């Protein structure tokens, strides 16, 4: 019978949102392969919610006894558990830690890996994955030919199973690693990370300068749960940090709503946000390529439009 192992990601004892999506994807894959077990593994201790993980699709939750994150330690723990369970696949979230673990686990299990996948398929009893390549300019569908299929899944592309039911929670031992996280500093500003947010307000060179960013902050403040994003030109000019860069050499995002302000729509930027459900473009150049990719566009000056947009949004989101 199929056994899929999902590696959960926790920070400060709290489960990261993308982990439930990976559990849901594993449930669907296990069912699609003719029924099987989904075991979720946290490589560090945390207080697991048996019903939310069970609801998301996990049959069993294993919690390893480590108290700090070590990527090489976590890989050893995960590889050991995968072997103990005779797992045929291991799923992770394609977060910074998940992408890191993905390559390690594949090497530890002498297998191949599929990174940053946007869909999983179970045709003909075997797993295959579709993933964007060349910054989203093309898609490839691949099959891992190794003893264990290791795959990381892009956040916001998969859903938890919502099937009800509780998972059985057990403890397991943790392997130690040579590298360890000695400190985690939370991001300042209180806004979520651009790669995780469901709504993104993003600015380009057309904003005019970093002093105009209060206009985007006002729009973001009117949109609960939104993050700030930026184009490469903005980051290269030093107006905003690289952590906010959206595009082929920044972060790839897929929020429900992406508001592009003063962004012309260079191919490498489009690659980073084309998966967004709804794209709004505000730009004074009516011929800007961004308008060909936007769901809705407004032609005009961001300095005039954004304060009004912030005000109108606040009225409906309050």
């Amino acid at each position, binding site marked *: 019978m199929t056994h899929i192992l999902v590696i959960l990601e926790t*920070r400060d004892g709290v489960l990261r949102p993308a982990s439930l999506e990976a559990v849901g994807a594993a449930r669907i894959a296990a069912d699609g392969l003719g029924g099987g077990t989904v075991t979720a593994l946290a490589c560090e201790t945390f207080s697991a919610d048996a019903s939310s993980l069970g609801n998301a699709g996990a049959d069993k939750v294993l919690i390893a006894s480590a108290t700090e*994150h070590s*990527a*090489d330690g976590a890989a050893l723990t995960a590889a050991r558990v995968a072997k103990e369970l005779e797992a045929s696949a291991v799923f992770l979230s394609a*977060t910074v*830690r998940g*992408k*890191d673990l*993905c*390559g*390690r686990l*594949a*090497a530890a299990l002498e*297998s*191949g*890996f599929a990174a*940053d996948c946007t869909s999983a398929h179970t045709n003909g009893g075997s797993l*295959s994955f579709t993933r*964007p*390549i*060349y910054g*989203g*300019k*093309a898609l*490839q*569908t691949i*099959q*891992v*030919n190794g003893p264990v299929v290791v795959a990381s899944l892009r956040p916001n592309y998969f859903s938890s199973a919502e099937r009800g039911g509780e998972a059985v929670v057990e403890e397991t031992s943790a392997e130690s690693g*040579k*590298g360890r996280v000695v*400190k*985690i*500093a*939370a*991001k300042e500003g209180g806004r979520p*990370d651009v790669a*995780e947010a469901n*709504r993104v307000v993003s600015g380009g060179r057309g904003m005019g300068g970093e002093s105009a960013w209060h206009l985007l902050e006002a729009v973001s403040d009117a949109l609960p749960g939104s993050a700030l994003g930026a184009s490469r030109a903005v980051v290269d000019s030093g107006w905003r940090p*690289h952590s906010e860069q959206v595009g*082929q*050499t920044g972060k790839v995002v897929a929020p429900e*709503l992406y508001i592009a302000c003063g962004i012309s729509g*260079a191919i*490498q930027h489009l690659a980073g946000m*084309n998966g967004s*459900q*709804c*794209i*709004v473009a505000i730009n004074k150049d009516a011929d800007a390529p961004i308008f*060909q990719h936007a*769901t*809705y566009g407004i*032609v*005009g*000056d961001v300095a005039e439009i954004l304060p009004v*947009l912030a005000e*109108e*949004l606040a009225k*409906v989101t309050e």
Partner: protein
Amino acid sequence: MKIITFVKRVPSTTTRVLIKDGNALDPTGVEFILNPYDEFAIEEAIQQKDKSGDGHILVMSFGSADSQKELRTALAMGADEALLLQNPDAPNADGATTARTLTAAVKAREFDLLLFGKQSVDKEQHGVGPAVATALGIPCITEVTKLDITDGTVRAEREVEGGREIIEAPLPCAITCQKGLNQPRFASLKGIMAAKRKTLDIVDTDMGTPLVEVLKMEMPPERPAGRILGEGVAAVPALITALREEAKVL
């Protein structure tokens, strides 16, 4: 400090992608460049070598014969010696197969530090550095934006979703380099001339049975055509209505 850094020849990020035979990139008319993240790795190798007072930088690539160009660029920037693990099918190799091939070559050498780009901008697998490190049994720190090596201990910083992590590990260690780590130098004319006299070894390399099979490659679905709602602030109410009632995202 003995450093090995790894580079890949990739299509430029401004290139248009076309598909050949349903499963690979059509290279016709494509401009190829040194993977941008590998430039951070080469720069870091040069800075760490300078800091340690003495050392050696080997730059390695698993690639086709064309990859000599990117290796020469690395030599011109300041690497001491280059090695091309040559295979005509290398550009289509998956990350795990590439890592296995590089691991075999690294094992035969002495090193303190391995420096990788955090990802290649073509297949974007993010996994080669961590996979090589795991196969070698050494620690690896990925997506590093700040690096300090003192008395055999590596202290690195990286951004994770919603925060920053500070990670420590002993040498020998692998690092994958993220934008922000340093400002890669341009090769000087002197560097380019010097690079012509540096050693670039070419070794025909078998990659074994690939660990990943590409079933197909296709263009992403086109987004449905959008519409311009109007000009200036007058269009804002129409946008709010569309977001609420049509897109249902508010």
